[in-house]
């Protein structure tokens, strides 16, 4: 046996060494090795021991499963990484999680190719070409951490010495909840108002509707297993945000118990498994939603335990007729009659059919089915209907359907977040000197809160307008930006009309970028710092919801970093603080030293201790039995790290009925909350709400401003010149924009319905393609009024004629050897953002991605 094995190994080695094996010698060695194979065949007697158990941590294998967190998308699943000899070898869902459990997803595995991506920056580097531009090779050279940190600290000190700390800017990309160390505390203590997050290119408009109806600014969880009807709007939970893993695991059961309908111009992964596909024209979701609301009311299908009823029980919601508000006694809602009279009474299925392109019969069928399932009837708001110019009101309209059927906070309905007990970091106030306080008072570079950018995250200017920061920088409005740091962001790729960011970044005299890969953003940086990867190299935590639970899931260093990576939100700010201290400014380091280890009371003395202590500090209420407040209980820190995740108590259904944080404490169809906040914004600018709406490009005037309603889409480009509407969407393999350097991404790209492996395709309806003389595989150029890209044509019936669907994710011209055809020069495929103009849903501050531009197609 041993001899055979050796022989076999030798032969394998020969083959590995790629020695020219002729067919003859191959045969010879093969027959010589026959013996070993026979032995293998006969001694192989597997027994079935533990197949009933889904998995086991100890049986077989040399490795161990370590708790982790996946941040490939914002599902933020609790995960486990299989470690063999210090290497990360596999990834799976963390069975200890009550949110996602052992369920993973396809994109989670790509984390392995990210961790060991050879194109990761292994050491700090600096540019040696002083000229900055898309066509200027930065000519990066490696430098030491010491040199990199000294340079950054010198630049910050320059601002401090010149009393111009407001010219410092921090740009945040993918974060953990350690974010405030770098994003908030460091920016404040240096003395700048300009900490700019990515949130408005994520989904702020999606939070607008839920906030101005039920005072919840956040992502919802949907109780799919108990629902009887699931109506999705531009959400694709089997492929992209949020809780893809949980919904993938639950969908097979949801299909059995619920009817599933989806409004979406493209046959998405979720549409592929739906009972009803409503292929709405882009930008018409709001019309469909109000028509469904109209039918629910005229058919008497509202949920009376939640909404209330006419005092005599007679349904007066008759198409075209006003209703006397006195006749309706509302329970847990506000303004159903006002909404009817102002918007809904004429919004029939026939009216909506003309606008949406969905047949009236289908609209009626879906509306009635949805209403009959009340209150276990989900109206699932995705980014599609609301990340549009004027999307705020569609966001409200779609979410308000949940109010009509009483699905809000209810079994089989739409749920908010469970309570969790993490703590905030120590306050920075005592460490902010006069320079910092003065600096912080300046206006923000993204213009939030200005008349034309209400960004009404709970209050005027409460939200960020991420993409507009480029214009702020370019126009030096309100001031120039001299020193900037970005981390795990790539606005030159992820923001629409990225060419503005290229010019903006080129204009910043000193830019540092903390990143795993040299991205399109790094291209403009003076210093690039190598970041740790979230899956296996850093301390941190995130919170997420699903399955009626909330989880706090930990990241911890599982493998030794291959190269000189440091963690963006903790280690790097500490290291910068140390340098600032050496240069005479100790406030930041002094502040960080207050993040003491809760177990020993010891202040951190280096970046590693700081990363650990700050996490222990923030999560102490979860792992310290003496501080226990609810949910899972642990014996202490070690126990928490081993388990990897804290789960909340189960969701308390209907607890918020009548106790919402809206102005009226009720679910608002007529939003007194929005009326108040919009009023504040108008007052701040000495004008009227109508003028605010006019400046911000909404159609609503008067009372319409405060109710969910349909607004016509605002789509760039003349229909004659640009005949198609662009439909942007996400891939189930996208790890945000960061999987493009993984070969698995391309080898499996066809798991996205309609897409093709190793290609970046624009999906065109065959009917449209025929008119253009296009066939599968043709190289084409898509052009919008604001830019163009080249990609490949794919003829597909799963797209609405008159639209072209293209997936976001490819089109990198940097990032790595696979992501781009030629690093720094030629992109692989085309990035959708090159087509999309920089437009906003100004009420939420959200960047518009959908129904935002028309395009034309040319064969190249």
């Amino acid at each position, binding site marked *: 046996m041993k001899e055979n094995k050796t022989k076999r190994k030798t032969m394998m080695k020969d083959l590995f060494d790629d020695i020219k094996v002729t067919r003859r010698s191959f045969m010879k060695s093969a027959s010589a090795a026959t013996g070993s194979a026979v032995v293998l065949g006969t001694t192989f007697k597997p027994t*079935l021991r533990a197949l009933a158990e889904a998995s086991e941590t100890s049986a077989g294998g040399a490795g161990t499963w370590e708790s982790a967190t996946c941040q490939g998308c914002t599902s933020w699943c609790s995960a486990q990484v299989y470690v063999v000899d210090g290497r990360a070898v596999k990834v799976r869902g963390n069975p200890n999680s009550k949110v996602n459990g052992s369920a993973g997803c396809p994109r989670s595995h790509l984390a392995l190719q990210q961790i060991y991506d050879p194109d990761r920056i292994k050491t700090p580097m600096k540019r040696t070409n002083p000229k900055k531009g898309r066509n200027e090779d930065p000519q990066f050279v490696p430098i030491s951490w010491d040199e990199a940190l000294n340079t950054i600290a010198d630049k910050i000190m320059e601002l401090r010495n010149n009393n111009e700390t407001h010219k410092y800017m921090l740009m945040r990309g993918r974060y953990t909840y350690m974010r405030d160390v770098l994003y908030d505390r460091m920016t404040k203590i240096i003395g700048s108002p300009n900490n700019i997050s990515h949130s408005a290119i994520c989904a702020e408009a999606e939070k607008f509707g839920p906030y101005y109806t039920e005072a919840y600014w956040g992502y919802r969880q949907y109780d799919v297993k108990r629902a009887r009807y699931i109506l999705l709007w531009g959400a694709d939970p089997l492929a992209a945000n949020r809780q893809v893993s949980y919904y993938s695991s639950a969908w097979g059961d949801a299909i059995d118990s619920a009817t599933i309908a989806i409004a979406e111009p493209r046959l998405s992964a979720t549409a592929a498994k739906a009972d009803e596909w409503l292929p709405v024209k882009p930008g018409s979701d709001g019309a469909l939603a109000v028509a469904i609301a109209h039918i629910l009311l005229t058919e008497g299908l509202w949920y009376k335990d939640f909404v209330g009823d006419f005092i005599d029980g007679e349904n007066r919601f008759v198409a075209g007729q006003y209703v006397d508000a006195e006749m309706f006694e509302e329970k847990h809602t506000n303004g159903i009659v006002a909404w009817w009279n102002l918007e809904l009474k004429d919004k029939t299925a026939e009216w909506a059919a003309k606008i949406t392109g969905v047949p009236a019969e289908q609209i009626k069928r879906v509306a009635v089915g949805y209403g009959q399932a009340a209150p276990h009837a989900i109206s699932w708001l995705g980014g599609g209907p609301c990340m549009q110019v004027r999307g705020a009101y569609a966001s409200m309209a779609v979410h308000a359907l949940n109010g009509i059927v009483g699905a809000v906070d209810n079994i089989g309905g739409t749920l908010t977040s469970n309570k969790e007990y993490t703590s905030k970091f120590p306050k920075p106030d005592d460490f902010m000197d006069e320079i910092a306080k003065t600096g912080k008072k300046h206006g923000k570079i993204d213009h939030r809160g200005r008349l034309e950018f209400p960004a009404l995250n709970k209050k005027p200017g409460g939200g960020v307008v991420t993409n507009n920061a480029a214009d702020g920088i370019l126009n030096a409005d309100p001031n120039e930006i001299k020193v900037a740091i970005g981390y795990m962001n790539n606005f030159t790729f992820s923001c629409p009309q990225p060419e503005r960011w290229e010019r903006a970044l080129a204009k910043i005299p000193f830019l540092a970028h903390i990143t795993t890969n040299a991205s399109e953003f790094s291209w403009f940086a003076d210093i690039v710092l190598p970041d740790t990867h979230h899956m296996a190299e850093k301390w941190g935590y995130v919170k997420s919801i699903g399955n009626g639970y909330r989880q706090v899931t930990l990241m911890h260093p599982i493998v030794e970093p291959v190269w000189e990576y440091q963690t963006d939100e903790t280690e790097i700010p500490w290291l910068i603080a140390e340098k600032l201290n050496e240069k005479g400014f100790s406030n930041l380091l002094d502040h960080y030293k207050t993040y003491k280890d809760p177990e020993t009371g010891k202040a951190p003395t280096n970046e590693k201790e700081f990363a650990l202590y700050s996490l222990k500090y923030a999560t102490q209420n979860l792992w310290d039995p003496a501080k226990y407040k609810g949910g899972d209980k642990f014996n202490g820190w070690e126990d928490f790290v081993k388990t990897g995740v804290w789960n909340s108590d189960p969701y308390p259904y209907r607890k918020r009925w009548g106790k919402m944080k809206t102005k009226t404490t009720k679910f608002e169809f007529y939003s007194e909350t929005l009326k108040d906040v919009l009023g504040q914004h108008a007052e701040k600018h000495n004008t009227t709400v109508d003028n605010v709406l006019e400046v911000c490009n909404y159609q609503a005037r008067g009372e319409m401003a405060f109710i969910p309603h349909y607004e016509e889409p605002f789509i760039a480009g003349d229909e004659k010149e640009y005949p198609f509407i662009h439909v942007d969407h996400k891939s189930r393999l996208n790890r945000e924009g960061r999987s493009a350097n993984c070969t698995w991404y391309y080898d499996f790209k066809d798991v996205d319905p309609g897409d093709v492996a190793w290609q970046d395709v624009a999906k065109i309806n065959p009917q449209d393609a025929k008119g253009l003389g296009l066939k599968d595989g043709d190289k084409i150029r898509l052009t919008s009024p604001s830019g163009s890209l080249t990609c490949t044509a794919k003829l597909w019936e799963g797209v609405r004629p008159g639209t072209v669907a293209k997936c976001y994710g490819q089109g990198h011209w940097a990032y790595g050897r696979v992501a781009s055809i030629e690093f720094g020069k030629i992109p692989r495929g085309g990035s959708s953002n090159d087509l999309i103009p920089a437009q906003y849903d100004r009420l939420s501050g959200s960047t518009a991605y959908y129904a935002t531009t028309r395009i034309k197609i040319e064969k190249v």
Partner: protein
Amino acid sequence: MPRYAMVIDLQRCVGCGACSIACRNENNVPDGIYWSNKITETRGTFPNVRYHYIPTLCNHCGNAPCVRGCPTNAMHKLDNGITMHDPDKCIGCKYCEFNCPYGVIYFNWRKPHQFWRDDKALIKGATSAPAEEAKKVGAKVVPYYNPERDETLPGIRPKGVVEKCTFCDHRVKKGQLPYCVEACPADARIFGDLSDPKSQVSVLLGKFRPFRLREQIGTEPHIFYIRDFNPAHYQPTKGGV
């Protein structure tokens, strides 16, 4: 002796491909080779159109054409029903690949994992080369190489031989599930012993009418499909006027 089989519940399947990517990972399969794969199909004309997804893998046939046609017995059946391959015996004639009616056997035309053999760095001194990365972490060719695959089959199959799904025999041997089964987020794959009437696979095959791929040709495939990927209802009419 067990007779292993797999039931794939298409209603539970969400068509995500996690099975296939996880398989790549578990078995150190090179790019372009799919032990686990799929058949997708878009049927109909807008707006009456549906997309279908059928996961595929080696059918571990009862009457396996790949085994019957193999001149060296490299492709062989194990007593537990697994169709196994022995690269030591393989002469690379590819008869099995041609004989397989399911297209699930692949030939290694090149030295596998070309990507990881490259010794060029993208940015000199500041990034590593793929080969350097693998060497630095002490892995065999691929940095995330799974050594457990090597327990019953060369961890990475050499150039000049075929390879295919083994039902993760190296895991099954240890009482673990095939990795695609474990990695399926939708629990759409059910693996077990067909000779045991109480096993989950036996129970499901008694409960649902299964279908198998090209079963009419007599290969006795042991991958069974139940239910439908798409559950859509329709309005019943008399003859559909």
